């Protein structure tokens, strides 16, 4: 059972701290804070223009037509993420309700940020051994990413969800909107392909290349 540390963690000795930092650096993660009882790790990001971690297109009947995520981590997790954000999307759609005289496609904006926890067992062991000097076993949850999801719904009830990793510079609203516009445009192109049956998964190369251009490059 993983529980968050309730007490403040005193700074451990410099020695073990530096060792831990090195170990983390080797796996490409960085320390954001040492004081808080939850260690925040973020990926080093050298590229700011491609920010999406996962992009999904969901049909009117709420099944995915296209879902692609950065293959570093567990893809299933992203599938769940997108699925849960559908609930929020539905809520927002129904909330607007009768006031939908507005003809514009619904840009739903920020759905909700989540703090995802992921446990690195080998790092835990390290950390725990460092901590052990100070107090007894407490297992930490390491806050890995903060994901924010953005949603966009068309008049034909096709939904687009973009999950971004917001530990990097936060994207401006305009950029997200333009990403959705691009996605929507290439989606209409896919629809116009006479060989595409609406309801099939999207296998178009042109669409793939637009999506890849938006995703974080797997380092």
């Amino acid at each position, binding site marked *: 059972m993983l529980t968050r540390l309730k007490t403040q963690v005193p700074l451990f000795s410099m020695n073990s701290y530096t060792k831990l930092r090195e170990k983390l650096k080797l796996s490409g993660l960085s320390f954001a804070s040492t004081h808080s009882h939850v260690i925040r790790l973020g990926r080093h990001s050298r590229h700011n223009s491609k920010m999406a971690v996962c992009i999904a297109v969901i049909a009117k009947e709420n099944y995915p037509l296209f879902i692609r995520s950065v293959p570093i981590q567990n893809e299933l997790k992203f599938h769940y993420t997108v699925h849960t954000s559908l609930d929020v999307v539905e809520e927002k759609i129904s909330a607007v309700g009768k006031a939908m005289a507005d003809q514009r496609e619904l840009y739903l904006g920020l759905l909700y940020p989540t703090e995802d926890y992921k446990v690195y067992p080998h790092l835990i062991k390290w950390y725990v051994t460092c901590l052990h000097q100070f107090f007894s076993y407490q297992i930490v949850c390491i806050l890995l990413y903060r994901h924010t999801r953005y949603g966009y719904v068309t008049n034909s009830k096709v939904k687009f969800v973009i999950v971004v990793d917001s530990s990097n510079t936060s994207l401006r609203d305009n950029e997200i909107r333009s990403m959705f516009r691009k996605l929507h445009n290439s989606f209409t*192109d*896919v629809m*116009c*392909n*006479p*060989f595409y049956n609406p309801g099939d998964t999207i*296998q178009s*190369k042109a669409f793939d290349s637009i999506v890849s251009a938006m995703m974080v490059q797997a380092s």
Partner: protein
Amino acid sequence: MSRQSNRTTDSKKMNAELFTLTYGALVTQLCKDYENDEEVNKQLDKMGYNIGVRLIEDFLARSSVGRCQDFRETADVIAKVAFKMYLGITPSVTNWSPAGDEFSLILESNPLVDFVELPDNHSSLVYSNLLCGVLRGALEMVQMAVEVKFSQDTLRGDNVTEIRMKFIKRMEENLPAGDE
């Protein structure tokens, strides 16, 4: 025999996407019906032929070009007048064979294939084969037998679309072969 060109002002504008989608629906329905790419290619060619034998009259009425003296002139008229009039594009005429009886039309863009991506199970489908039939049918009505085929296609990954046309013979005053 040519009508007065009072049809020149009659070209109404139509949405290109509707045209593209219509053609796409036609091809996919043929694919579903015949389930064999070669058969579909043949059908498209036949359909094109039927269009061509009728379209030539309209073309001659609208464009009021005279009789072409040789095949080169024919090629120029096809590229600069006919394609421009009906598809809004102007292909370039290149790759003349040494004997002067074969040439290529290079199309940078083909309005029939906007948004189209050929799926893998239709790799031998010549999507725009209708155009081949149209050219063949139209030229047959002016007593020229030609063979038309696509040698490059953007849908298959080439950079441009290339139509190869070969002059076979001048037909004597035969009746057209009729619908095959």
